[in-house]
């Protein structure tokens, strides 16, 4: 069955050429071959509107309010501003669904989700949007509720949209990566599932994102993009397999290893000995991962594993891009209590920010405005020199509390 009406798409047709898979070819297949009349018509109209965008270099969707019963967010409403010309896609809402940590699926489950969407939506989906959700793209208000009821019954829930805790993301992690230092899956679910109410009912100053990477390679872009970044790391020595080091030296040559491993260590913590064994100054290794990335058979993270937590990463709006800042240099995550403490930290931070953040102010922007020390005092975390790249450069500060602060430092050291 084909769409009742076909709109000409000369510009989009050009995107069917070339070797990379074409989204236009895919949408056209729905238009021309899908037996569900709604899908054929809505995708035909979508192509018409997209062609119009290509011709005029303008977008034609506007937002609105659509949600499912019981929730305040999770749907990205889309109403067409050119519905007169392209009426079949006048409503084209996107539904955000939370994936598993690391985005694991069986093919059966993918088919099942696809079937549900085919019954209730356009047949177009994305694994995944930049925020981390499965995005089911294009349905009516009515279809939104039906689709959600369907997939919610077999274990899938909506993600966040608006000023709320958002869908979290994790790297491939311990399931398949030897670099991993933590259980990303456990961390993601402990954290975000503690805040399901805040995911579904937007009532925070703005968005709040958790992202988890199993090691400092940070494949999940957590430091740059998450309000609450959890990065796996280790405290003890890098594990070395000297026989494998010799194999690398033999295969690549001494000079290659010196130029590409030894001298590239940011803290000069490496040396290649005359007998082709490696010397590592582990106290000065900053766990950057470089040497391990180059020689994964010879070097591995240590065994005293845990996480570093950085707070306040975000993208451009409003004061410019910010990286997260170290707030917890190292935390073991082994027992239930450890995980509970991590969740408590997240609660403290979200509560403090909910109270002190301005409308539409990300957590990192609030920290920038009030200063890290005020933030730390607000969430009851002690200062630590790992939180700074350098100490203060300006003398313009009142320091009459120095002696008390110094005593606190020595007391904390004595306790540790």
């Amino acid at each position, binding site marked *: 069955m084909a769409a009742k009406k076909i709109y000409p798409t000369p510009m989009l047709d050009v995107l069917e050429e070339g070797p990379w898979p074409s989204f236009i070819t895919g949408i056209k297949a729905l238009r021309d071959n899908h037996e569900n009349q709604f899908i054929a018509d809505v995708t035909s109209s979508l192509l018409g509107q997209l062609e119009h965008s290509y011709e005029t270099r303008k977008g034609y969707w506007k937002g609105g309010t659509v949600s499912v019963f*019981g929730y305040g967010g999770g749907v990205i409403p889309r109403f067409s501003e050119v519905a007169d010309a392209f009426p079949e896609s006048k409503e084209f809402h996107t539904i955000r669904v939370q*994936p598993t940590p690391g985005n694991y*699926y069986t*093919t059966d489950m993918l088919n099942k989700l696809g079937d549900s969407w*085919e019954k209730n939506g356009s047949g177009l989906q994305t694994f995944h949007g930049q925020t981390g959700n499965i995005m089911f793209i294009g349905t009516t208000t009515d279809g939104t509720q039906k689709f959600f009821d369907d997939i*919610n019954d077999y274990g899938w829930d909506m993600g966040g949209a608006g000023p709320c805790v958002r869908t979290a993301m994790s790297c491939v992690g311990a399931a398949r990566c*030897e670099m991993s230092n933590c259980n990303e*899956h456990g961390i993601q679910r402990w954290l975000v599932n503690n805040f399901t109410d805040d995911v579904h009912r937007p009532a925070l100053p703005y968005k709040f994102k958790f992202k988890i990477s199993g090691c*400092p390679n940070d494949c999940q872009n957590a430091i740059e993009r998450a309000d609450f970044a959890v990065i796996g790391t280790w405290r003890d020595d890098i594990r070395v397999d000297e026989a494998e080091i010799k194999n690398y030296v033999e295969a690549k040559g001494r000079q290659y290893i010196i130029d590409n491993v030894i001298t590239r260590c940011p803290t000069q913590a490496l040396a290649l000995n005359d007998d082709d064994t490696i010397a590592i100054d582990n106290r000065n290794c900053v766990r950057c991962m470089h040497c391990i990335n180059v020689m994964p058979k010879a070097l591995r993270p240590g065994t005293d594993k845990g996480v570093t937590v950085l707070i306040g990463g975000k993208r451009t709006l409003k004061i410019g*891009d910010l990286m997260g800042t170290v707030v917890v240099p190292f935390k073991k995550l082994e027992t239930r209590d450890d995980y509970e403490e991590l969740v408590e930290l997240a609660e403290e931070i979200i509560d403090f920010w909910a109270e002190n953040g301005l409308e539409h102010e990300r957590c990192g922007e609030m920290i920038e405005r009030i200063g890290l020390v005020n933030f730390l005092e607000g969430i009851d975390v002690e200062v630590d020199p790992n939180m700074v790249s350098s100490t203060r450069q300006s003398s313009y500060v009142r320091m009459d509390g120095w002696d008390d602060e110094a005593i606190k430092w020595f007391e904390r050291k004595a306790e540790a």
Partner: protein
Amino acid sequence: MAMADMRPPIESGCPDGFQYMHPTMRRNFGLWKYHTDPKPGVLRHVAESGEEIFTVKCGTQRILDIFSLRELTSIGDEFADGFVRFTIRSNIEYYVTDESKIDPLIEALESKGYVVGGTKNSVAAMSHTQGWLHCDIPGTDASGVVKSMMDELIGEFKSWNMPNRVHITTSCCQINCGGQGDIAINIQHTKPPKIDHAQVSNVCERPSVVARCPVAAIRPAMVDGKPSLEVDEKKCICCGACFPPCPPMMINDAEHSKLAVWVGGNHSNARGKPTFQKLVASAIPNNPPRWPEAGAIVKLILKCYKEDARDWERVGEWVERIGWPRFFELTGLPFTKYHIDNWRGARASLNASTHIRF
């Protein structure tokens, strides 16, 4: 429907991933020892137990129609073990434990037009945003830009010819939800918003629009006897932040919304600390359906990087080593007053030394 008939949601949140994980991965969770790279697009991970798993990484069009999704899953059933995951860049990864399945799997994928690659020092699949297809604020498309560029970069996706991996991103408004990339192609507006004064009082909450502007360029005003907003065009930095909360602040312009290219965004802590991307080129026409001018600049930068960078250097590290003057010399791109930052913290980006290369 009456409220009483509505089905209350089950607030299950983020689902457990272990139920969908390959049994070999479940058994060896946290116990992987090392990996090797048998060929582009294929990874081999070896666990402490001696068990192995192979990953075949495959680029997709991201906007998947149900026919393509079923094609990908049926290939996963016939040629792999029925367990998959998607990467942050919308590649699908298939897992197999039997090495002899790899080649038939790749063949099946390629025969259907999918592309295997994106591992190690390749140009990874570009990450993209929603664009004209389904966002309400975009200045350009995203899927079309990515399709056009990946058509040209496909050889680099399928091979290991770059000094280190290259992550390219696109964003279709200056919110930049596409994130940081070694190379980023983002919208850059060049004119202040045109205001549809008749609509402002109907659809905008004026104080929150005023508050949204990063440079306090917006103030409430009466226009033609109706409450509206006005923009101090001398102050306005054309960022478009006022547009999402107030669509009558029309920032998108067919001619004046341009593309800009940025380099050196890197999320990894390897060698240096993570870095944000820096401006290299702007005023690039927003030229659908193939954006050839933006594509040419990306290819130019990649060519210079490939020729000049050392092994393991990401694009940003390469530029840092050779210096910005050499970057502009090698690429032939113009250096302008717009490259010099004046936003908060800008002083840290100025050269306060005699470190100069001649």
